Structure formats: C-alpha cells, structure tokens
C-alpha cells in the first residue's frame, strides 16, 4: 500500500516537472504510432488470406501457409542466393575501401590536396540513385558507352554489362563503392583524428616508418569503429538497396538481379498478392534481426565493442 502511494507520488511529481517535455514529444509520438506502429498491426495479414473486401481484421487466418508457400516455391533458393551473394560481395569489397581511403588521407600532409580529395570523394553520395543508374546505362552502353569504346580501342569485344547476369554484381558493387566510399570514410577519418598525438610522437622518436605507424597505431586505433560499422552492415545484409537493384534490373539480368526486396515489391504491388508479399517481408525482417542480435553478441564476447 505504502509502495503504491510512493509510485503514484513519484509519477505525479514527474508529471508536474516534465509535462512540457512530454507535450513537445507529442507530435513525434503520434508520427511513430501512425506511420510505424500501425503498419506493425497489419503484419498479421502474413498469417491470413487477405481479401480487400473483408479488411485486415476480417480476413480469414491461414496460419503459416504463406510462409510454407514461399519456402517451397522454386524462387526461394535463387532469391536467397542472389540476395546473400550481392550483399556479401558488397560487404567484402565495399567495407575495407573506406578504411583504406581514410588511412591514406590521414597520412597526407598537403592540407589543400587533402581537402580537395575529400570534397571530390564525398560528392557522389548526394547524387540520386536514379541519376547514378542512368549514368551506368550511359557509360556501359554496348554501342556508345565510354567503357565499351575504351574496350574496343584496346582491341577487345564490347560487353553488354547491364544485360549480362554475371556482370550484375560487379557493376552493382563497384558503382556502390564509387558513390559511397568517400562518404563512409568520414567516420574513420574522425576515429583517426581522435588517436592521441602522444602515440605518434613516441613512434617518431623511436624512428618508426610511416608504414609501421599505419600498421601499429592507425589500424589498431580504428578497429573499434570498424567493428561497430561491421555490425551495422551485417544488420542490413538481407535489406540491401531495393532501389538500385530494382532500377538496374531488366529481363536479361533477372536471374542475378532478383533479390528478396525487389521480389516483395513485385509480388505485392504489381501482382497484388498482399498476404504472400507481407509474409516474405516478415521472414526477411526476422532474419535481419536475428543476424544483428547474433553478430552483436559475438562482438560482445570477443571484444568489448558492441552496439548496445
């Protein structure tokens, strides 16, 4: 009884003290409820057979039938394979480049040149995905694209990059690096800047070469940041850019370019199989969370760096 009174009193006190803060939060709270939590209520259609006339609540339950259908469909393994190979190749090739770039920039003593390189390499980050894909079509065009003109000048055959499934992943990953490596390097540049200058002083007195400084001071100094970024990347592994894959997709490269997010879009909004699409989406989301939680746990065990 006494305890309850105490809680009530604390709440009253908090309320009197903080009600204005709560009022400030009101619109954001409404936003999250309406645009993020209400759709979660709609996730139940993954376990139903959605009929528009009956609505979300009225449609009949079918249990895990939509999921079984997906697991048994002939599309299942190709989709998983395409999605994983695309995001894993992006991780393997895309992840180290910003770190390398940051280390290289950090060793640069020419201030102006450094600023210039930074300005240039951040720039593509602000180009829209449509323009980026449009540029790919222009530069990789088999007839008039610059890349093929160079190939022909070197005496090679021209390659139809965007119509060839085996070129889909390299083009996707390389254009991603072109667009984002500079921007993703910022966080490592910040990490390098926060390394204590004493370490560099000591290394200089000991006569360490630049390469040794990179090897023994720079790299250990950015490992915590790199681990954190790596965890975040793993969390996105099944959620890899729908937009670029969708825009680069065409009938010729579909065998490599159909990934889970593009499939969800097509099944859901073009074929209007709402329940089936929602089930695939939920499956994808759950895998993502499992990945994120387990990688975070591993990182916690093996080192002290983690997200939470």
């Amino acid at each position, binding site marked *: 009884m006494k305890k309850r009174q105490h809680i009530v009193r604390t709440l009253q006190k908090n309320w009197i*003290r*903080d009600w*204005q*803060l*709560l*009022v*400030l*939060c009101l*619109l*954001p709270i409404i*936003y*999250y409820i309406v*645009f993020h939590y*209400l*759709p*979660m*209520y*709609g996730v139940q*259609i993954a376990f139903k057979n959605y009929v528009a006339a009956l609505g*979300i609540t009225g449609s009949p339950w079918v249990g895990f039938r939509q999921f079984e259908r997906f697991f048994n469909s002939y599309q299942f393994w190709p989709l998983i394979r395409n999605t994983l190979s695309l995001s894993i190749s992006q991780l393997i090739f895309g992840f180290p480049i910003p770190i390398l770039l940051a280390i290289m*920039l950090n*060793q*640069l003593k*020419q201030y102006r*040149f450094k600023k210039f*390189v*930074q*300005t240039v*390499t951040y*720039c593509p980050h*602000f*180009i*829209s*995905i*449509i*323009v980026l894909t*449009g*540029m790919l*079509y*222009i530069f990789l065009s088999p007839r*008039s694209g*610059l890349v093929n*003109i160079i190939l022909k000048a070197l005496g090679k055959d021209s390659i139809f990059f965007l119509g060839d499934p085996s070129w889909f992943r390299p083009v996707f990953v390389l254009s991603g690096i*072109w667009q984002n490596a*500079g921007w993703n390097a*910022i966080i490592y540049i910040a990490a390098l800047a926060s390394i204590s200058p004493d370490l560099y002083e000591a290394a200089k007195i000991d*006569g360490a*070469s*630049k*390469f*040794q400084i990179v090897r023994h001071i720079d790299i250990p100094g950015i490992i915590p940041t790199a681990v954190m970024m790596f965890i975040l990347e793993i969390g996105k592994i099944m959620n890899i850019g729908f*937009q670029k894959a969708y825009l680069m997709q065409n009938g010729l490269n579909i065998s490599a370019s159909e990934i889970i997010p593009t499939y969800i*879009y097509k099944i*859901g*909004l073009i074929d209007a199989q*709402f329940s089936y*699409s*929602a089930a695939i*989406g939920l499956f994808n989301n759950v895998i993502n969370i499992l990945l*994120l939680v387990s990688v975070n746990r591993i990182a916690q065990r093996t080192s002290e760096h983690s997200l939470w």
Partner: protein
Amino acid sequence: MKSIFNRNADTIFDIVNISLLVLVTFLVLYPLYFIVIASFSEPDAINTGKVFLFPVGFNTTGYSRIFAEPSIWTAYKNTILYTTFGTCINIILTMSFAYPLSRKEFFARKFLTFFMMFTMYFSGGLIPTYLLMRSLGLYNTPYVMVLLPALNVFNVIIAKTNIKNSIPEELFEAASIDGCSHFTFFFKVVFPLSQTIIAVLVLYYGVAHWNEFMNGLIYLRDESLYPLQLVLRGILIQNQAAADMMGDVESFLEQQRAAELIKYGLIIVSTLPVLLIYPFLQKYFAKGVMMGSVKG
C-alpha cells in the same frame, strides 16, 4: 632517429599514397565531368568516342528540349514543394523530439528512445504500410510525400547528441531558478543556439527529399504529382518519355541523337541544385556524420 632505410621507405610510401589518391580523385570526378561536357557536345562525336577532355562542337538541343517540356517543369515544381514543406516538418519534429530526449532527468526518456529505436529494426513492411496509406486516404496525395518521411531516427540521434553536448546542463538549471519553463527554454535558448545542427538537418533531410523516388513509385498514381526523380527514371532508365519530347523531329536517327543529349542535360539540370550548394556546406555535411558517431 630514423634510419636511412625507413626514410627511403617513407618517400616510397608518400609517392604511392599520393599517386593512388590522384587516381581515386580522377576516377570519381571524371564521370561527372564527362556528363557535363557531353551535354554540350555533338551526339555523333560522343558515340564515336571523340569526346574525352573537351566538348566537341556546341550543341544545346538537349537543354532547349528539356526547357520546352512541361512535364519536367511540373515534376521540378513538385519536388521543390515536397522538399520545402517536407524539410520544414522534419526540422520541427526532429528538434522538438531531440530536446526532451536530451534532458537526463526526463522520466520517459529511456522508454521513448526505445520506442523510436525499435522502428529501426522492426517495421511493418511494404504491404502493411501501403494498405495503411490507402485506408488513411493518403494514397495518391502529395501529403504522403511529406508525412511518411517526417522523422528519421538517425537524424534525431544526431540532434539529441548535439543539443546535449553544446548546451551546458547548468544553463537550464540557472534559467529554471528564474522561472523559465521547458517551453521558453526550448524556443528562446535551444533553437537559437542550435543553428549548426539545424543546418546539418536541413541539408540531410533536404537532399533526401530531393532524391526521393521510392515513395513516389509506391504511393503516387497521377503523373501530375510525380516528383522529378520519377520522371527522370522514365527518361534515363526506361527510355520512354524522350521519344514523346520530339514529335517535330523527322528521322529516327535525329530522334536518337536528341534523346542522348536530353539524358545528359537532364542529369545536369536535376543534380545541379544539390551539387551547387554542396561545396559551400560540405563542412556541415561532414560534421553531421561526426556527431552521429559520438555514442550516447
């Protein structure tokens, strides 16, 4: 002291490092530069690979056709509207959420942080959101373009961290002794002192609105509501609208030539606003990333 061996190693390191960075800069810059010179060049010269460092000929057909096309201007106007109104909503919501979350004593702080972060990891997904937009009557209206992306978790965290670090704890304590409420403090102190972070937010949100095409693709049906990026997609990637834009040109060959120039020109016209403001505000852009990297 450095040995001679290490001094030589350093020279080699510097040479390799600088040449690699020159190469990187060239690889990033050249495609952008090429689009600019190609947009003024003769299409035949581009197709045969004669355009490398300077424009060949001087041809403004691409631009004149772009400027004569009403659907592009409608889309441009739509994007400007979505960007302006969308960013205003973003700033108001983000700041008014970030301030309470930055107050250590706020009793609901932990819960609300979780409430927000949870949406980053779990979401209803495409179809449930789509069905909700339909039942709310937002489908195929301009409101969906400004309301759906009204808050971004990452940006709220940046703003919260910044307010916490830049406005000293004692300031509110001193003000509250003088009878200053949270409202007054927020509007009279936090807002005016947060100009840098607001600049960062305006740029992040603004660029995101400018480049947005997914929401348009999913939630808009009327072409008169399309944002610029969706119209660009038709021309750059699906090759469709370009043919409509030159009914008066006779031969097929002429059409193809003009279509190429229209593509180059459109890339410039649509990206120019972002790329023009970018060099001046670069320091703010980068600052945002640093702020986000501070944990807590």
